[in-house]
C-alpha cells in the first residue's frame, strides 16, 4: 500500500501535467449528453452483459448507482471525473484480448471511446430518457411559409427545410376524400356527404365540413374502437386450449360509444382501469372494467386456477404498459429491465394494483355484471333506496354490489380440507359425495346471520350443516338439503356470528348407499346479513324483489370487482418471474423512475393507479396515445416502435412534434381524441399527394420527413368495410353479439371444443369487420391474412405484410366474390347502358374519380374476354353468378368478373 502511494506520489506531477493538458483540450468540449451519446453505446455494446439481466463481474451500467458501485473486484469500475483510473475506460482501450471489452466482440471505435472517456471525466452523469420526463410546453418553430396550415405543420416543415426537401402539393379531392374517410370512419361516407365535398368549390371550407361530419358519424366510434380492441386484446373466446365462447361484447360496444361521444382519454382510461371503484359506479363504468377481463382464462381439466389467475394479472400489467405506455414492461417480470430503469421488484409492486380482484379463473367467469332492463332496473332502484332508508347506506351499497355483480362471494373452487369431496377436474367446482366435508378458510363472519349459496343438489333427504373452526366444531346451522332444479340460489338464516373464522360445510344423506356417487355440486357461497327492515311496511314485497333480482336471468359481462378487506391478497416478488417461487412481500407502487408525488387522496388501489396514469405529469400516457393516433393516419408512429418508447425503441423522427401534440392533447384539448384527430387531419402534411418522386425515392423512401402523403395498405377491417360500402351492402346496424359472416369449413379446431361457426343471416352477413366473431385460436382467416391481430395478448402494433395469400383472399374468398356480384349490380343500375360506361362507373364508385383511359382499356379488354367465354359457356356463367339453376346473360357475368378484378387493384387495397 505504502509503496503504491509512493509511486502515485512520484507520478503525481506528471499526472497533474497531463491533466492540465487534458483539461485544456477537453474544457472546450461540449458537455456530453447521456441520452443521445452515451446511452446508445451502453445499450449496444455493454448492457447485454452488464445490465438488468446479466451483471458480469458484478458490473452493470443500467442505473448510475449500480455503475458506480463496487464490482466483484472490490472496486468501482467508473470513477467519476477520472477516466484514466476507471477500469471501465481501461478495459475498452486495452490491447489484451482477454481484458478488452466488449469481450470477444469488435472493439469500440475511437469516437465511442472518446465519448465514454469524456463522459466519465465530466462526472459520469446519468440522464433521463426523453420519454420518461414529463411533457413540457414545446416551442413551435418559426416558419414563414404558405404551405403550413397549423402549428403541427411547422414542425414538419422545419425538418423538411433542414433536410432540403419540399413538401408535395395537396392530393386531389377524390384521393383526399377516400383517405380521410377511411382514416376517420374506416369506410366510405354517405353519398350525400361525398357529393357535397366533391362538388364544393371552396376546397378548404368543404374539407373542414367533411372532417367535422366524419367526426360526428357513428361510424367513427366503430373505426377507432377497432384500434383499441387490439390494445384491449378483445376477443369473443376465452383462449388457451379449448378456447370456448365468452360473452364480453358489451365491452366492445362500450368502447364504440366512448369514442363516439368523445369521452376524454383520461376518463376513458380511468373507467377501464378502475370504473368499479367509483363510489356509485354506473353500469357503463362496470362494463368498462371488462378491459381487464379480456385476459385469457383456462378451463382445461387439471389446470390450476391460481396459476391462470396469476397469468391474467401479469397480462394486465403487461397490457397496461405496452398499450397505454409504450413500454416493454414484461421483461421486468423475470429480472430488472435489461435496458430501461425498471427494477425487478417494481414489476410486482405494480402488479399488486391488479392483484386484488375477485376473478379467480373459474369457468363461469365470475364476477359477472348483470345488465337489467329498464323495468328490472326500476325495481332495483326502488329496492336499493328502500333498503337505504330502513338500514342505511352501507347495507344498501352491499346489496347493490351483490345484486349487480354477485360479489363478494367465495368460489367453491377455493374450498380445501376436503373429505369425500373433490374440486371437479381440479378447477370446476366443489363436488360432494355422501358423508362429506370441506373447509371455507378465513370467512369474515362479523355481523353475519345468513348464507346465500348457489348449488345443485341431486338427491332428496340429505342434511347440510355449517360448523365453526373444525368439522365437528360448534354448529352454526343445519338444514335439509332438497333436490334443486340445477343450480339454485338458496338462503340459510342463522344466529348472528362474529370474527373471521374457518367455516366447515358438511353433508350427510342416510338414504344414499353408494359411497362413490357425487350428489351435491357447489358454485359459490355468500355470507351476509338477513334481508333488513323486518316489520317495516313493504318488507315482504321488497324481500321478494330482492330474491327475484338475485335469480333473474339477464345478459352478463365479466368485470372487475375489488376484494373486500377481509379477502385482500398479499403480494410478493416472483423469483425469476415464476409465480410458484414467491420472494419478498411488496405493496402497491409505480416504478421509482416514473414516480411523482401523488395527491394525498390517491388510494392504494386501481383508482390510485388510474390517477397516476392520467396525471398530466405521467410522461408516457399522452405521448403513447398521440403517437398511436399518428400511426393510424400515417402508417408509422413518430416513434415507430409503438410497443417501446424506451431506450431500445426507435428514436422519434420528430420528438418536439410528439411532445407538442401530447401537451396539446392534455392541456389544450382536455384529452379530447376527436379534437386531436381533427388537428392532425387538418394538417397540410396530411393532405399531401402520396406520389413518390425520384428525389424522394432516393432521399426519403420511408417518408420519415413527410414530404409526401403516406401510401398504406388498408387494415383487414378497413378493407372489408370499404368493400361492403362500395358494393352497397354495408349494414349500418350497430352493437350486439358478434356475427359470423361466411368463412371456409374447418377453421375451428380447438381441442375439447365442439363449437361451430354458424353463418349469420340477413344483414348480419354484411356487418362491419369489428362485429365479426373473434376466436383467439382460430381467428377469421381473411382478417388474419391481412395482418389482423390474434388478440391473445395486447398488440400495440400491426406489422403490415404483402403476401400471395392476401391476393387469394380478395380474388377467391366467397365473401369477395359475393361482393363483386353486388358491385356489378350497382354498376348495372347506375352505370348507363354500355359496358364502357358501366366499367367507368364501377371505378368511380370505388375511387371517386373518373377512370383513366389506360385503365379503362385494361378492363374493357378483360370484359370482352370474359363476355366471349361466358357466352360460349352459359353454365359457367350461371355458376359464376352463384345460381346454377338460373340463366344469366354473359354481360352480367362478365361485369362481375371485372368488378372482382377492380376490387383487387393496388389503388383499392391501398390508401393513396
Amino acid at each position, binding site marked *: 500500500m505504502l509503496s503504491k502511494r509512493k509511486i502515485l506520489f512520484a507520478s503525481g506531477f506528471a499526472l497533474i501535467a497531463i491533466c492540465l493538458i487534458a483539461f485544456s483540450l477537453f474544457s472546450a468540449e461540449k458537455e456530453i449528453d447521456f441520452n443521445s451519446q452515451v446511452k446508445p453505446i451502453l445499450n449496444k455494446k455493454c448492457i447485454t452483459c452488464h445490465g438488468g439481466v446479466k451483471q458480469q463481474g458484478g458490473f452493470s451500467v443500467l442505473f448510475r448507482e449500480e455503475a458506480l458501485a463496487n464490482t466483484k473486484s472490490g472496486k468501482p469500475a467508473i470513477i467519476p471525473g477520472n477516466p484514466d483510473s476507471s477500469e471501465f475506460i481501461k478495459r475498452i482501450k486495452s490491447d489484451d484480448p482477454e481484458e478488452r471489452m466488449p469481450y470477444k466482440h469488435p472493439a469500440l471505435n475511437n469516437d465511442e471511446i472518446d465519448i465514454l472517456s469524456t463522459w466519465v471525466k465530466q462526472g459520469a452523469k446519468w440522464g433521463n430518457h426523453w420519454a420518461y420526463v414529463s411533457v413540457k410546453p414545446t416551442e413551435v418553430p418559426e416558419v414563414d411559409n404558405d404551405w403550413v396550415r397549423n402549428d403541427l405543420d411547422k414542425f414538419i416543415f422545419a425538418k423538411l427545410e433542414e433536410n432540403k426537401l419540399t413538401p408535395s402539393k395537396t392530393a386531389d379531392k377524390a384521393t383526399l376524400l377516400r383517405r380521410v374517410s377511411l382514416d376517420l370512419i374506416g369506410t366510405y361516407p354517405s353519398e350525400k356527404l361525398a357529393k357535397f365535398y366533391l362538388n364544393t368549390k371552396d376546397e378548404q371550407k368543404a374539407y373542414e365540413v367533411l372532417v367535422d361530419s366524419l367526426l360526428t358519424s357513428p361510424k367513427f366510434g366503430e373505426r377507432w374502437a377497432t384500434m383499441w380492441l387490439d390494445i384491449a386484446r378483445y376477443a369473443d373466446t376465452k383462449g388457451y386450449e379449448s378456447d370456448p365462447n365468452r360473452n364480453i361484447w358489451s365491452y366492445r360496444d362500450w368502447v364504440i360509444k366512448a369514442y363516439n361521444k368523445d369521452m376524454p382519454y383520461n376518463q376513458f382510461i380511468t373507467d377501464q382501469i378502475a370504473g368499479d371503484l367509483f363510489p356509485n359506479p354506473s353500469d357503463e363504468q362496470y362494463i368498462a372494467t371488462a378491459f381487464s377481463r379480456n385476459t385469457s382464462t383456462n378451463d382445461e381439466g387439471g389446470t390450476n386456477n391460481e396459476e391462470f389467475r396469476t397469468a391474467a394479472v401479469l397480462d394486465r400489467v403487461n397490457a397496461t404498459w405496452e398499450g397505454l405506455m409504450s413500454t416493454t414492461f414484461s421483461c421486468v417480470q423475470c429480472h430488472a429491465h435489461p435496458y430501461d430503469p425498471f427494477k425487478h421488484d417494481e414489476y410486482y409492486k405494480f402488479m399488486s394494483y391488479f392483484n386484488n380482484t375477485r376473478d379467480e379463473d373459474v369457468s363461469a367467469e365470475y364476477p359477472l355484471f348483470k345488465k337489467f332492463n329498464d323495468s328490472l332496473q326500476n325495481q332495483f332502484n326502488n329496492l336499493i333506496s328502500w333498503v337505504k332508508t330502513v338500514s342505511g347506506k352501507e347495507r344498501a351499497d352491499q346489496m347493490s354490489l351483490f345484486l349487480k355483480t354477485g360479489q363478494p362471494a367465495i368460489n367453491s373452487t377455493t374450498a380445501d380440507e376436503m373429505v369425500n369431496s373433490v374440486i371437479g377436474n381440479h378447477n370446476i367446482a366443489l363436488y360432494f359425495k355422501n358423508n362429506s366435508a370441506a373447509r371455507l378458510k378465513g370467512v369474515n363472519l362479523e355481523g353475519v346471520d345468513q348464507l346465500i349459496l348457489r348449488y345443485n343438489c341431486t338427491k332428496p333427504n340429505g342434511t347440510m350443516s355449517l360448523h365453526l373452526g373444525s368439522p365437528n366444531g360448534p354448529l352454526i346451522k343445519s338444514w335439509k338439503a332438497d333436490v334443486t332444479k340445477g343450480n339454485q340460489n338458496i338462503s340459510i338464516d342463522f344466529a348472528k356470528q362474529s370474527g373471521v373464522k374457518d367455516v366447515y360445510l358438511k353433508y350427510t344423506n342416510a338414504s344414499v348407499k353408494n359411497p362413490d356417487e357425487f350428489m351435491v355440486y357447489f358454485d359459490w357461497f355468500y355470507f351476509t346479513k338477513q334481508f333488513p327492515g323486518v316489520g317495516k311496511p313493504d318488507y315482504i314485497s321488497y324481500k321478494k324483489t330482492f330474491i327475484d333480482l338475485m335469480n333473474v336471468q339477464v345478459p352478463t359481462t365479466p368485470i372487475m370487482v375489488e376484494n373486500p378487506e377481509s379477502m385482500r391478497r398479499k403480494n410478493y416478488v416472483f423469483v425469476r418471474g415464476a409465480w410458484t417461487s414467491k420472494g419478498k412481500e411488496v405493496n402497491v407502487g409505480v416504478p421509482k423512475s416514473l414516480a411523482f408525488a401523488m395527491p394525498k387522496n390517491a388510494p392504494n388501489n386501481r383508482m390510485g393507479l388510474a390517477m397516476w396514469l392520467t396525471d398530466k405529469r405521467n410522461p408516457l400516457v399522452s405521448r403513447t396515445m398521440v403517437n398511436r393516433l399518428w400511426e393510424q393516419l400515417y402508417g408509422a408512429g413518430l416513434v415507430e416502435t409503438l410497443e417501446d418508447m424506451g431506450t431500445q425503441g426507435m428514436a422519434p423522427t420528430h420528438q418536439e412534434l410528439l411532445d407538442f401534440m401530447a401537451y396539446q392533447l392534455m392541456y389544450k384539448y382536455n384529452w379530447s381524441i376527436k379534437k386531436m384527430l381533427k388537428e392532425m387531419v387538418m394538417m397540410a402534411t396530411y393532405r399531401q399527394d402520396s*406520389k413518390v418522386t425520384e428525389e424522394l425515392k432516393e432521399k426519403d423512401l*420511408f417518408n420519415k420527413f413527410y414530404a409526401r402523403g403516406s401510401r398504406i395498405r388498408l387494415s383487414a377491417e378497413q378493407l372489408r368495410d370499404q368493400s361492403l360500402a362500395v358494393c352497397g351492402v354495408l349494414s349500418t346496424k350497430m352493437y350486439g353479439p358478434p356475427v359470423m359472416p361466411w368463412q371456409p369449413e374447418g377453421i375451428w379446431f380447438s381441442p375439447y371444443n365442439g363449437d361451430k361457426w354458424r353463418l349469420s343471416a340477413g344483414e348480419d352477413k354484411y356487418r362491419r369487420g369489428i362485429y365479426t366473431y373473434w376466436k383467439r385460436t382460430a381467428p377469421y*382467416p381473411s382478417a388474419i391474412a391481412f395482418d389482423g391481430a*390474434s388478440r391473445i395478448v395486447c398488440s400495440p402494433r400491426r406489422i403490415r405484410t404483402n403476401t400471395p395469400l392476401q391476393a387469394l383472399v380478395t380474388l*377467391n374468398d366467397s365473401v369477395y366474390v359475393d361482393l363483386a356480384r353486388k358491385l356489378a349490380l350497382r354498376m348495372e343500375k347506375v352505370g348507363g347502358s354500355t359496358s364502357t360506361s358501366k366499367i367507368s362507373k364501377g371505378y368511380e364508385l370505388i375511387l371517386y374519380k373518373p377512370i383513366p383511359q389506360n385503365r379503362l382499356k385494361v378492363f374493357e379488354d378483360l370484359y370482352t374476354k370474359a363476355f366471349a367465354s361466358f357466352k360460349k359457356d352459359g353454365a359457367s356463367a350461371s*355458376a*359464376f353468378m352463384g345460381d346454377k339453376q338460373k340463366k344469366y346473360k354473359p354481360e352480367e357475368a362478365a361485369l362481375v368478373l371485372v368488378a372482382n378484378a377492380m376490387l383487387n*387493384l393496388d389503388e383499392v387495397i391501398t390508401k393513396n
Partner: protein
Amino acid sequence: MTRDELNAYRLIKEAQEAEALLQSRRHFLKESAMGLGALAMGSLLGGCGNFFSSPQTKIAYDPAHPLLAKSPPFVGKAKSVIYLHMAGAPSQLELFDFKPELMKMDGQDCPPSLLAGKKFAFITGVPKMLGPQATFAKHGQSGALVSDNLPHFSTMVDEVSFLKAVKTDQFNHAPAQLLVHTGSPRLGRPSMGSWVTYGLGSENQNLPGYVVLTSGGSFPDAGKSVWGSGFLPSVYQGVQCRSEGDPVLFIKDPDGMNRDLRKASIEAINKANEQQYQEYNDPEILSRIAQYEMAYRMQISAPEVMNINDEPAYIHEMYGTQPGKACFANNVLLARKLVEKGVRYVQLFDWGWDAHGDSPGNSLNIGLKNKCRSIDRPITALLLDLKQRGLLEETLVVWGGEFGRTPMMENRNGIQNPFKGRDHHTEAFTIWMAGGGIKKGFTHGETDEIGYSAISGKVDAFDIQATILNQLGFDHEQFTYPFQGRPFRLTDVAGKVISEIVA
C-alpha cells in the same frame, strides 16, 4: 433499421434490376413456364455471402421474388427439411430411453433428491416412481433400443441418429414449442422454417417454400406463432396446407371461372397496377404485382401436390393413409410429395401426445399406444420412401416433441391421477434425426439409470437448430437478420453443432 427499412434498402439496390425486369416482362406466365429462366434470374439477383467482405452471412432479399432459390454460404448436405413434431411431448421412457432400474423402483416414493428445488407442471408433494410401460428390445445392427410401441419404426433404426439427452428449460407446451421452433419461448421470433426459406428461398416458385401440416384434431398449443415469420418479411411465414377442403385457403377459383379467365383477370390487375406504379413510383406496388403472380401459380401447383389420390396403392398401403381425412399418415405422405417438388421446409404437428394420465386418451397404456400406432407406419414409410427415391440423403428428417416426461407417475395436488401418466419433464428427452447428412445407426447422449437427468452428450433446442442449419449449409452464428438495432439469429446467443451425429 426496421424491417420495412431494410427491405426497402435492399429494394433500392435492386430497383434497377427490378425495373428492367418489369419492362421486359410481357407475360409473367412465360416466366413461370420457364422455371430455368427464373432460376437464372435468381443467381443474378440473389447473390450470396461471397459478395460481401463481412463475416456475417448476407442474404440477398428480392422483394419482387422473395422465394427464388439461393445458395447457402457453404455446401450443405440437406436441401430440405421435414420436421415431425409430436405436440404434447411423447414419453421418451415408453419409446426409446429404456430404464430397467426405473422398473425396479416402480411404485416407490420418489426420492427427495429428485424433487428438491425442482418445478413441475402438475406434480406436487411426493409422487410415486413409474416403471416403463412398454417392452423394449434391441434392433438393427446398431442395436438401438426401441419399445414395442413402434414395431415398424424399429426396423429403421440403422438409418437414424438418436439424441437421448435433449434438455429444455420450458415446462409448458406453448413456450417449449416456441423455443424448439423459434429459439425463444416468447412470441415474436421467426420460426426455423422462416429462417431457412429466407436464407435459401425455395426450389419451386409455384408453391409456398414453407408448408405446415397439422393433424390430431388441434393446432399445436402455441398456435400459429410456431410457424410465424417474426421480424422476417412475412412472405417467409409457414403456409398452412390442409388435406381437407381447399388445400390452401381460398386457393380455388370461384365457381364458373375457368383458368383462362383467372389468368386474364390477374393479367388485367397487374397491368393496371403497373400503370399505377408508373404514376406513384412506390416499390410496394411492384411487390404486390409479384404476389399476384405467385398466387396464380400457387393455384395450379398446390391442389396438384396436395392431392394424394393419384399415388399408387402400395404407397397408400405403406403409409397407412386414410384418404379424405386430416390425419398424420396423409400429412407424412404429403410431406414427401412436397419436398419432392422442391418445397424447402415442411413442418408437421401432430397433436395429442400429452400423456398425463388424467384420462384414458391421455394415458401411457391407452392414449400413447394409439398415438404411436398412428405414426409408426407413416414415419417408417417416409424414411423408406425417401430412400427409394434417392431423396433421403438430401432431406433432413427430424422427429421429436417439446420436452420429455417424468420418471415419476403424475399426481395432481398430491392426488394420484386415475390413469398411468407422466408429467412434463425438462431434464431429458429423445429426438431423432435421419437423412440429410446425419450419421446412420448412431446414438448420442445418455441419461442416468432412471432417465431423470442427462449425464452425457447433453444438447438443447439451440444445438439442434444449429445442426439443422449446418446441414443446410449455414453457420448458425453468422446467419443473422438486423432488427431493433442488433443482429438476431435463430440460436440467439447459444447453440453448438452436434458434430457427433454429422456423417
